[in-house]
């Protein structure tokens, strides 16, 4: 079953077409990659899925529900989480508070929506997630004081507090060193084992090729290829897009 379906999405900024009739699916329980050269429209697509950018045409289906006209916060309540390429943390708060507030927001809307199904206390859940992401040492720091690699983990931890079904990760490995990236890949696989679907935009090809089940390639706002990692690595159009074609 597909967790996310994007049908014929087009986004224009003035005369520039950022996304041109893009369709794709993200299957449940997979790690799906989205790659493409700079400016291909990857972040725009993420913005369309999370509702921060309105699509001029097309529709977004989350878990079987059409969410094209829903506000971002309502999509989040459908089980969609995301991180940002340009970090969007809360610098007034500490690492711990950044993660805590997310859980608090979730519990608040969950109880408002009549969903009394809040099993764990926030403290318990937070402890689990902080251990999982390895942020225990940084918990009391303000987020402005920690390195970028760690900050990306805070964004991920913050999203995990929401119990998301699908997480969009926008370049999570940039700012991380090789060791951190390797650990991060391992963490992603652990998350999928827990039933979370991951949609990953990443420039670090070793990460993409090692963790992804399926990869979509975007160039100049259009999908030019999709398939398994092996298929993508040998695809002529993908190589052309990245290295430039001979013609």
């Amino acid at each position, binding site marked *: 079953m597909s967790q996310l379906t994007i049908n014929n999405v087009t986004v224009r900024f003035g005369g520039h077409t950022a996304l041109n009739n893009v369709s794709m699916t993200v299957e449940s329980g997979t790690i799906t990659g989205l790659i493409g050269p700079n400016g291909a429209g990857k972040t725009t697509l993420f913005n369309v899925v*999370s509702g*921060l950018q309105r699509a001029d045409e097309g529709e977004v289906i989350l878990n079987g529900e059409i969410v094209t006209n829903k506000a971002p*916060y309502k999509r989040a309540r459908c089980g969609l989480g995301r991180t940002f390429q340009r970090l969007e943390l809360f*610098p007034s708060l500490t690492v711990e508070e950044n993660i805590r507030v997310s859980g608090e927001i979730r519990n*608040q809307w969950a109880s408002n929506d009549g969903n009394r199904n809040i099993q764990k206390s926030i403290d318990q859940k937070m402890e689990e997630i902080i251990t999982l992401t390895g942020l225990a040492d940084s918990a009391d720091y303000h987020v402005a004081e920690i390195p970028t690699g760690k900050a990306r983990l805070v964004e991920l931890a913050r999203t995990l507090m929401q119990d998301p079904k699908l997480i969009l990760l926008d370049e999570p490995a940039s700012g991380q060193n090789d060791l951190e990236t390797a650990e991060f890949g391992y963490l992603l696989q652990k998350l999928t084992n827990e039933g979370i679907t991951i949609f990953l935009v990443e420039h670090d090809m070793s990460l993409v090729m090692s963790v992804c089940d399926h990869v979509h390639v975007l160039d100049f706002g259009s999908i030019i290829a999709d398939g398994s990692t092996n298929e993508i690595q040998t695809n002529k159009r993908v190589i052309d897009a990245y290295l430039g074609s001979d013609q």
Partner: protein
Amino acid sequence: MTELVTFTVVGLAIGSIYSIASAGLVVTYTTSGIFNFAHGAIGMFTAFIYWQLRWDAGWGGQWPAPIAMLFVLFIVAPLIGIFLQLIVMRGLEGTNETTKLVIPIAVMLAFIGATNWIWQDLESRIPEPFFGRQSKWSIGDAYITTHQTIVVVTALALALLLKFLLTKTRIGITMRAVVDNRELVQLNGGKPDRAALLSWGIGSMMAAVAGILISPLLGSLNVLALTLLVVNAYAAAIFGRLKNLPLTFAGGLAIGLSVSYWNWLSGTGRKWPWLSELRSAIPVVILFAILIVLPQDRLRGSSIMKYRESFKVPSIKSAIMWGMVLITVISAFTLMLESKWEFSLAKGISFGVIGLSMVLLTGYAGEINLAPLAFAGIGAISAYQFDVGSGVETGVGFATLAVLLAVFFGYLVFPAFGLARSRLWISISIFAFIVLGLVTLFDGTSGTGIASRESMSFTGLIVAALIAGAVGAVVALPALRLRGLYLGLATFAFAIFVDKMVYKQRQTLSLDIPFVGDGEDITFNIFNNGALNIPRPGFFGIDFRQNQSAMLILLATTFSLIALALVAIRRSTYGRQLSAMKDSPAACATLGLNMLKLKLSVFTLAAAIAGFGGALHAANLRAIQEDAPFTVFEGLALFMLTVVGGIGYISGALIGGLLYGTAFLVMGDFWGKLATDWASFEWFFTAIHDFFIFLGPAMAGIGLGRNPNGIAAQIFDGFRILREEHNKVILSVGLLASTSYWALRIAGVIDGWTFLLLFTPTLILCPLIAEARNKDFKFEKENQLELIGIEQAFTDEIVESIERELNFPTSEERFNKEGNPS
């Protein structure tokens, strides 16, 4: 037909002036990204200078019109613009939204203060229109004055000139390019600084043209009225989205015509007395409406800023401690201060209470409200009407109203604190019952009505907060999508609206509460004679009417309690959500947070605090007028000084309030006293006195408004040093000294001024001495490690301290170890 032509011509003329003024605003905004709040004040200031040169019978006056005009437009105005850009505005690039608002507001207040200072005496200054009042020509039966003709022609000519400048000249194209990408312009050999200078020069020239052209239409020159007239042009600039000049010109004309046609329709306000002042409020109503329908930027995170604000949050324990310190210090002061000084101090602290509403709204939640005193004014009026002013047919009417307000307030605010569903309604019911109980039992409000009480009741204060909160919600509701500058402008428009439509309201209002009484349950006269005599509080068995000390302690206690509540809020999940919303709306949305509800609740809560503080402030003053103390300009000044104090801190609100309500008056009084004591230096001391009174707040804003953390943080850092163990001696000596001054003052050995002269240096010296001592104690951090040995000798001491820092064995220990192996 004749009327149509007449009103159209009047509308076109005034609209042309708005167009000119707003075009100037757009030119500066597009090239510098700064919305020049001072635009209106520059127009006003130059109009005064023009009047001085052209019309004054005394100094400088009686220049021929063309020469005076050329001088003001091509020398004075551009110099003002260039000076502003060079000295003040240039440093604002990369600062946060609040700073970008506060500095131009400070400049505006500086121009207003300077004009009031220079043209102090109350002579009436009447500028004549061009070619006199009789010079006119006719279309049919309608007359068009030469002045109106000149106005329209000037606007047309300026529009064409601007168009030519921006599209056909090299510098104009550079100006537009700077807007798109400053760095790129620089890389291509353009000079963005020069373009910015030119745009500020042109901008203030346009303001001057507008000011000079509009002043004869006003009759006698009036500082605030003239400033506000040019402010009307802001709506046109927003209509052009702050970048489109043709749309801006069209907007200006549309506003001018709307005002004129409304005058025609309403018989200059006579036809519907309720709306008689709407003619002067139409432009801001249009401004508010345009802001609301304007498409907004999509959600974005906070941009990278040069100066990042970082507010520390105190613990509940330290909030309680500091609250008690404040109450104790104020109580100690009441024993030695004369009633007059107690009164000014009380003024400062009650402004501080109103300032707390800004700490919550702007400091914690990042939402800008330029109308804090409009809500305070509404609170004051509400408390007055509840306790004194209104005629009530049955007490049930008021009780019902209060309960409705309580339910409304609870519905908006409580969910944000995590109350949901059944728990929400239970807590709203409890709250409503408490309010009902207060209204009916506690204050004995039942049966024949409550009017003509001689003191302000506690319930009156609660009602004031509830009404102000409700108004806050109603204003915020349409403006929820707005952020930053646009939200600031919307609230600014609201403040002007309250100035015109509430404070100048002279009609009697009757309210019919459904199902209660018959017909007119509550009747009141909002602001009947342009002044309201507000009663002092009298509750908890204390009479605050004659007892200024009790009033002062009451205010200090109120401040401490609300402050404590704010700290508790900031440390709760609600407070964390507010911080999150301030820091990154985009991230909040992706976490499932409905920010509209959160914003609405915080606006309501902040307005309620402002209303509560406003009622107390008015009670302390005993009377409020239509032009003081809750007008738009005073609100801007308080906002500015709270930012100066540190809008993210409780103490920032206190500092802001004390600066605004107390400090500058005390300083003025001090120099005024010197002026009377030393007659030979009178001119000098009077000048300093006037400087503090007229320009003090504005100068504080320009000088200190740039630090997003405010001076509260700096003061804390200064005093924090005293808490270190080895500085306890200094702290004790300082406390002992202060207590002795206080005791001497109480005993009547020294007078108030001597106390101040002893106390202030002690306060300043303690942290300074501590710092100086600290330098002897510690390895001096100023010396950069890598430069030791280059800029500074490598002494044994330094080697030792480095080893100590790095936890190496010292050379002595090493020697012992190596020399005497055990």
